[in-house]
C-alpha cells in the first residue's frame, strides 16, 4: 500500500477530474496521513482547480471567432484553388 510522493500526487491530480479509482484514493489517503508535503500539494491542487473553473467562466464570456476580414481572405485563397 506504500506509494511514493510522485505516485501520490499523480493520484491527487487524477482525482481533480474524478477519475481516480477507489484503491488509488485509499492509497493516497494513507500516504497523506504521513506526508505533510503531499498534504499541502493536495490542498493547493484543489484551490488551483477552483482557479481554473473561474478562468473557464471568464473565457466563455468572450467566445472566439475569426473576423470578417480573415474569412474574406480565406475565401479568396480558397477560390484561387477551386
Amino acid at each position: 500500500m506504500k506509494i511514493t510522493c510522485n505516485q501520490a500526487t499523480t493520484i491527487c491530480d487524477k482525482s481533480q477530474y474524478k477519475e481516480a479509482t477507489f484503491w488509488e484514493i485509499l492509497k493516497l489517503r494513507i500516504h497523506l496521513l504521513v506526508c505533510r508535503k503531499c498534504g499541502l500539494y493536495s490542498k493547493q491542487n484543489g484551490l488551483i482547480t477552483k482557479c481554473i473553473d473561474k478562468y473557464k467562466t471568464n473565457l466563455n464570456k468572450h467566445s472566439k471567432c475569426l473576423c470578417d476580414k480573415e474569412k474574406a481572405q480565406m475565401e479568396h485563397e480558397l477560390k484561387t484553388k477551386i
Partner: protein
Amino acid sequence: MPKETHLLNPDKWVKLHADYLYNYAIGRINNHDLAKDLVQDTFFAGLKAMDNFQGLASERTWLVAILKRKIIDYYRKINSAKGKAEVKMNFYDDGEREGDWIEERIPSSWNNETEKDIENEELSDALEKCIANLPEKYAMVFRMKTIQQIETEDICKELEISSSNLWVIIHRARTQLRKCMEDNWFKN
C-alpha cells in the same frame, strides 16, 4: 427510401464551417494564427481530397476529420521538438530517493490562499500565463482535458497516446502549474 447522400460545396465552406473549425482548433492549441492556418490547410486538403468523399458523412464531419488529422500532425511535431521549454522535474527520477520531492519543488505554504482571491480577475491572467509557460505538448493536453473537458478516452484517441501517458502529462503539467502560481501569485 434511398439514404441521404451528402454533397460537398467548397464555395460555401468558409461561410458555413470556418468558425466551427476555428473553435475546434483554438480549444486545442490556443494560438489564433496557428488555429487559422490549420483551418485554411484543412480547406485546401479538403479540396484535394474531394474525389475521396463518398457522401456518407456530412460535409462538416468530413472537414472535422481532416482538421483532426492536421492537429495530430501538429502534436507529433511539437512532441518531437527537442530542447524547447522542457518540463521541470518535480520528483527524483531514480536512485534511493526515487519518487521523492526534489527540494526546491516542494510546495510551500501560501500567504493569501483565500476564497476571495479566486474572484480576482487578474488571477485568471496569471493562470493563463502559467499555462502558456508550459511546454506546448503539456499545455495542449492540459487544455483539452481541463478547459475543453474532453473525455480522457477521446483525447487518447485523438492524439494517439495511452491513458497512462495522458496522466503523466497532466500530472507534470499540474505540478509545474502549481509551482508557477505559487511563485507568481500566491506568494506575493
